[in-house]
């Protein structure tokens, strides 16, 4: 027996979709590798290991409400289900308890979320260099922090993590802000529309002033960032009002997020290049329906919309799926969609403002030195890739075959966007003509034993259900 609807990813998009489906009597199956629902943004929001999780901010705490609604809605949530394949035939494979399970479903909603945009500055692969996202995972999951770290880059997530650190009383060696001056001008034109989301705007501004008030060194319009150290990071040098240097054992980099392409690419969904977000988006309609009608995408995995946007997109995708399953009429879908669609529009105006303000500079998006590593798994530098290109590998996949760039355990997540951009430069063409790696499942490493224990599941075992309670 096939499932009606399987949702991959229990972040805000997946959770809100499950709640909406349940409101109309469809009990979905929700798979997520996490031990708890919540996704990246609401990770452990309802069960934090921190003594006072409210220090992580009201947004984080509001996640607890959605998590509670989700857990009460009756959807079957399988925690610890690490989905490593979604097929265009509606088959899904996941690992759990050291085994592989195969299920079939009529409708799939994929909510794989975002990954952080790689920031290939010299030394970015040194031990001790991490992303702001990693800082958050450590904080939310295990209440682990790094004392005296430097935070470098730009964007809301970076400032949020710095603010969260400061509220918890963790010493921060400095914030090296790379937002270029011209972005403020570019963003200004989108500001009036964004003002309609005044509360969001206010949230952003208050984060920055909170950081300033805390008195840590804040360097603006920083350029020419270089990580220092031979075998591990010892600090960061950059220009901001002259040459600066900060010593630190840990440097957190971040300059925005992009949709995690691996699952939607492996599925063969159509993607389009988005110049505002400098990223590939999954091509969908208003309801997240992809180029394969029974596969929908919601949340940051399709295009960056943020936690609030993901919440709404999950609801819209669910309404469309309900219509496709003939649980509601097209008219009902349209009527129920009106208000979320309006909300999403307002949010997207704010998003445009953010996109312009925190648009990463080319100098940080593309490695500037020939010996900067591009692929950390296979240790391939710009020069190595250029040599491969000169031997005729003009396509990202050909370059991968030639140099092994993208073949390592991160499965191209780190180098994929950089490789396409480099090739676009070298070919003198636009990145949308160059394309991207041809991705394949699995989306994670899996042991031979895990794969060999292969079971097709047509309904949930009672134990899996219990585990989610």
């Amino acid at each position, binding site marked *: 027996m096939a499932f009606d609807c399987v949702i991959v990813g229990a972040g805000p998009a997946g959770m809100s979709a499950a709640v909406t489906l349940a409101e109309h009597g469809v009990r979905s199956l929700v798979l997520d590798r996490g031990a708890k629902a919540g996704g990246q943004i609401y990770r452990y929001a309802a069960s934090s290991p921190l003594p006072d999780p409210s220090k992580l901010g009201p947004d984080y705490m509001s996640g607890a409400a959605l998590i509670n609604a989700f857990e009460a809605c009756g959807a079957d949530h399988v925690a610890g289900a690490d989905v490593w*394949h979604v*097929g*265009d*035939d509606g088959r899904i*494979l996941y690992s759990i308890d050291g085994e*592989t399970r*195969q299920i079939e479903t009529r409708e799939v909603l994929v909510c794989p979320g975002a990954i952080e945009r790689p920031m290939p500055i010299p030394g970015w692969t040194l031990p001790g260099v991490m992303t702001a996202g990693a800082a958050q995972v450590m904080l939310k999951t295990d209440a682990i922090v790094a004392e005296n770290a430097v935070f470098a880059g730009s964007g809301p997530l970076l400032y949020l993590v710095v603010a969260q650190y400061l509220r918890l009383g963790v010493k921060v060696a400095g914030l090296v802000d790379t937002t270029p001056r011209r972005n403020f001008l570019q963003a200004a034109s989108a500001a009036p529309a964004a003002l309609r989301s005044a509360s969001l705007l206010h949230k952003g501004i208050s984060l920055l002033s909170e950081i300033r008030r805390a008195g840590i060194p804040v360097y603006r319009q920083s350029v020419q960032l270089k990580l220092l150290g031979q075998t591990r990071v010892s600090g960061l040098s950059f220009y901001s009002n002259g040459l600066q240097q900060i010593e630190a054992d840990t440097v957190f980099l971040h300059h925005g997020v992009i949709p995690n392409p691996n699952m939607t690419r492996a599925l*063969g969904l159509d993607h389009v290049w988005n110049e505002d977000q400098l990223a590939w988006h999954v091509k969908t309609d208003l309801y997240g329906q992809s180029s394969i009608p029974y596969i929908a995408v919601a949340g940051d995995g399709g295009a960056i919309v943020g936690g609030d946007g993901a919440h709404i997109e999950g609801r819209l995708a669910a309404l469309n799926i309900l219509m496709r399953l003939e649980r509601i009429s097209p008219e009902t879908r349209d009527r129920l969609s009106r208000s979320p669609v309006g909300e999403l529009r307002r949010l997207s105006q704010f998003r445009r403002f953010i996109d312009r303000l925190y648009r990463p500079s080319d100098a940080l998006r593309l490695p500037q030195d020939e010996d900067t590593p591009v692929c950390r798994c296979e240790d391939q530098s710009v020069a190595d890739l250029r040599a491969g290109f000169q*031997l*005729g590998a*003009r*396509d990202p*996949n*050909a370059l991968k*075959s*030639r140099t092994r760039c993208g*073949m*390592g*355990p991160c*499965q191209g997540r780190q180098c994929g966007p950089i490789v396409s951009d480099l090739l676009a430069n070298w070919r003198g063409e636009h990145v949308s003509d160059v394309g991207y790696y041809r991705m*394949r*499942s*699995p989306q994670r*490493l*899996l*042991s*031979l*034993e895990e*794969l*060999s*224990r*292969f079971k*097709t599941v047509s309904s949930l075992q009672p134990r899996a259900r219990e585990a989610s309670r």
Partner: protein
Amino acid sequence: MKTADVLIIGGGIHGSSTAYHLAREGISVILLEKDYVARHASGVNAGGVRVLGRDLAEVPLSKISMQMWQTLDSELDADTGFRSTSMVYIAANEADITTLKQREARMNAAGHTHERIIDQRELRELLPYVHPSCTGGAVSQQDGHANPYRSTNAFRLAAERFGASIVEGTELRNLRRVGSSWIAQTPKGTFEAGTVVNCAGAWADKVALMIGDNVPLNHAAPMLMITARMPHFVEPVVGAVSRQLSFKQFENGTVLIGGGAKGFAERAANKTRLDYEKLANAARTTIDFFPIMTRAAINRMWAGLEAYMPDNLPVVSPSANAENAFHAFGFSAHGFQLGPIIGKVTADMILTGQPGFDLSAFRVDRYDRKVL
């Protein structure tokens, strides 16, 4: 219109090798490739370079090809990644040993001695981590592996150095004979040549039809998976006499697992889909024979589009119905190793009419006559 002496369709290893062997003799060559060189089987295969276990009809070609592999890097001034590691077929039981002995008798009668039967002790010396119950096997000393993408491009780059023109992203759509010329239509213009060679892999039946030959070619998608790096534990390429087992460990520590299981092929869309349940079986077989692989971490899985003939033997042959047209396709999942020699033989067929081998088993019309 661009013209050349010879027009080759397909930038796999056979088209590229043919281009090299012709260009080296001063022949002007244009090669059309609809995607990019080594995009398909030739660039994504398991890289196995083996004589072991081949059909008797292929053995003479395969043996010479194996000699060519030993010095290919210096001949092409390239790094194909070829390593002569030897290859072992494992006998799981006495029945397998019997199979091997029967084969040995046939091979010896034909004068071939490159496959040698080994006992349990030697098997364990060669493969210290093999399951202790395995009883013996066969070994072929010169066999090994190479990097498929680099090998195919090694021929391509060498051909270009001799003046061949390799035209990528250009699909042959229509081919006709006008007077003594072949006129080839593509979305990127027209090409003209006196002689045409069909090296179009999984699409070769379509090109054969344009030439005027009908062949019962099938296409399928054999699957592979590769692990993350792990400590070195095996030197030879490994196969089994009667089970779908096949793997090799590269110098970087990754282990490539094949076994011949097939996924789903959609050649019109350049697409393959994997059959994960079959890959799960391959995983189980691998663990059965090599318990050390239990915890190996699979990093990537894929499949390639390959051309199969009903008898699993290739077509290497002049056209049956047209002048100055030749075929080299249908390698049925073991054509990579033959790359060096097939280019040479095809060039010889074109230039002298004397391939130097008995190619009767590979005739393009071998099924025509049987049907009638």
